[in-house]
């Protein structure tokens, strides 16, 4: 926790690995929300 985060660098893009992981998890969660049905009755 006390050590600085690792960074990924491609050209002008510079992002820390924790931030990249959070964005990746958010995209995964969004896609899951699109395809997984919500439980409960439907009319």
């Amino acid at each position, binding site marked *: 926790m006390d050590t600085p985060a690792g960074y990924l660098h491609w050209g002008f893009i510079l992002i820390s690995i924790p931030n990249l992981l959070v964005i990746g998890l958010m995209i995964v969660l*969004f896609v899951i*929300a699109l395809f997984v049905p*919500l439980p*409960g009755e*439907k009319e």
Partner: protein
Amino acid sequence: MRPTNASGPLGERSSSWTARAREEIAERLPMENLLPDRQPYYVGSWVYVFGVVTIAALVLTVLSGVILAIAGPDWWHISAAGRFFNSLHFWSVQVFFVFMVLHLWGQYFMASWRGGRAVTWMVGVVIFAISIAAAFTGYLSQQNFASQWIAVSAKDALNASGLGAFFNVLNFGQMYGIHVLLLPAAIIVLVALHIVWVRMKGVVRPIESSQRATRSTSEKV
């Protein structure tokens, strides 16, 4: 008093502004819209859950923030319970931002500003902007080395923009007051308005369903 178009219980126009306001509210936001027990079939998706998770995180953020404000910085940095509530405040903000952005993505791809819902969309954008300012002042209010480092790093940018004269990030009292009162009050009021507008206009139809409805109407004509 001026005559109005609002009608009373017997259909006559009311001369009282309170009666007119009551009738206006009842017409625009009836109780069955404000507290609905049924929703259209397309609301049965996890995408519609993102907004309510954001509100739940906001409630947790506010409650943990109230406890932190009552007990003070020496408590939240030193005692075990204080550290717990400090962490709870921090992580509920992370959940708030993650789900607010997921809610934004969902509403963006559904073009949720359709059907007279532009005000709801714009209020949401303003809530997002104020939340960023609230998070920033929160980082400045931690009372540790991190908050000092953030303040010293941020002051040059704010001074260069001219905002530094009014918004001094090195002034803990100013940042703390803005963080615990002004910005949360603005967010809570705007979130309440956001929800009321959603209830007034109803949840937006998915684009496909909306096009089908338009097509079937034009076929009938």
